[in-house]
């Protein structure tokens, strides 16, 4: 059992599959995410694959300032990702709302709706930074330090 736990930890670090979600982004961060997934940066060399179904994913990549219209969809998709899972907020918008903060159509910071594990600063961030964030999130998953894993441990206690 101990052996399997160790193996599981390594494999969580080695195989983080991502699901990309646009929560009202201006498309700037999405272009950079697409560039990050392109052959030039090749995330598959660290085991990252882009998945079309949230049920196959480990990491949720969120771009955009989270508009009122997208927040229900975001919660739904986050709930569909099987645990353990990590959330990566790409760009300034999901961190703070950026220039859209205070708008009546925008929720603001992503952390108000779902727990965020890794922030990627920048407007938009570079593809290397997004790849770095995926690797960092995979390390968090491997060590059981994502908000999702910690929350489950708390709930079991």
């Amino acid at each position, binding site marked *: 059992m101990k052996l399997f736990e160790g193996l599981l930890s390594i*494999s*969580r670090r080695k195989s983080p599959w991502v699901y990309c979600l646009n929560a009202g982004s201006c498309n700037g961060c999405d272009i950079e995410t697409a560039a990050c997934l392109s052959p030039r940066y090749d995330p*598959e*060399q660290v085991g990252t694959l882009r998945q079309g*179904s949230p049920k196959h994913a480990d990491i949720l990549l969120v771009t955009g300032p989270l508009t009122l219209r997208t927040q229900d969809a975001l919660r739904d998709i986050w709930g569909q990702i*099987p645990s*353990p899972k990590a959330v990566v907020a790409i760009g300034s918008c999901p961190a703070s709302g950026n220039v859209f903060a205070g708008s009546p159509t925008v929720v603001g910071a992503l952390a108000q709706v779902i727990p965020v594990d890794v922030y990627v600063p920048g407007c938009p961030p570079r593809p290397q930074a997004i790849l770095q964030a995926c690797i960092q999130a995979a390390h968090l998953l491997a060590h059981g330090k994502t908000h999702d894993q910690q929350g489950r441990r708390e709930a079991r206690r």
Partner: protein
Amino acid sequence: MSAWWGIGAALLCWPGLIGGAAFAWLLLWIQRKLAARLQGRKGPPFYQPFFDFIKLLGKETVVPGGVNRRLLYALPMVSAVAVVCALSLIPVPGNPMPSFAGDLIVLLYLLEMPALCGVLAGYSSRSLYGQVGSAREAILWLGYNLPLLAAVLSLAIKAKSLTLAELAGVPLGPVHVAAAAAFLLALPARLKRNPFSIPNAEQEIIAGPLTEYSGAPLAFFELAHALELVALVSLFTVLFLPTANAPGPGWVLYLLGSVVLVALITLVATASARLTLRHTFRIYWSWGAGAAFLALMIAGAW
């Protein structure tokens, strides 16, 4: 007593579960690495398919609302067990399983199980994408099985036997050329690779029948699919390359043939675009049917 040991070893060690899975992950890695290199990427490290499998085993399984939980778990298990049994029947070099009369028919039935389970999985998952994927797979089934079965049956006619070991021992002749062509034509569709990957076209129907699957059931479906690759590639090398006749270079020929065949499938898959269902079906019922007819004619006439 020793026959039972042979059966157990064939099911568990080689070419069954453990050896088969290790070889399957190696072939899967070759596929992914070669595709990556052809696209100008670096590609995954060689342990990637293994870690993908372990990670999926350790994830939570989400049972979609209104889906039978037992069915959700049973379908991937049945398909994985069926492919392991199928693998253990194929007379690859070093297989301790004793050959018996009619094992060809058992093998063909067992090899149909993953496709059947995949179709059922898509229909029972209550996902629109899964149902569309299943419908496509079920239609394609009628297409690719024609050349695949004809290729194997033409060898059976030639050998006048339904025992795999005797099929593998047929001296190479013109029937092998026609049958190999039919087999190779059916292989990409059987493995759902480009240009015949319409059942799991990820750009339009997400992951096809497996869209709603997660965690351990998904891991076992992936394992079954990887083992299916080994089974089909092994069947090809055993039937169309003289691996059985020489025990020394038999191993070398088997491994080399498998790797070259997988590389060939990957090359075609990377170089081609996906065909629509209509075109795929038409190809199988024109070229596929032609190859099947030719193979059977040669087997009967020569």
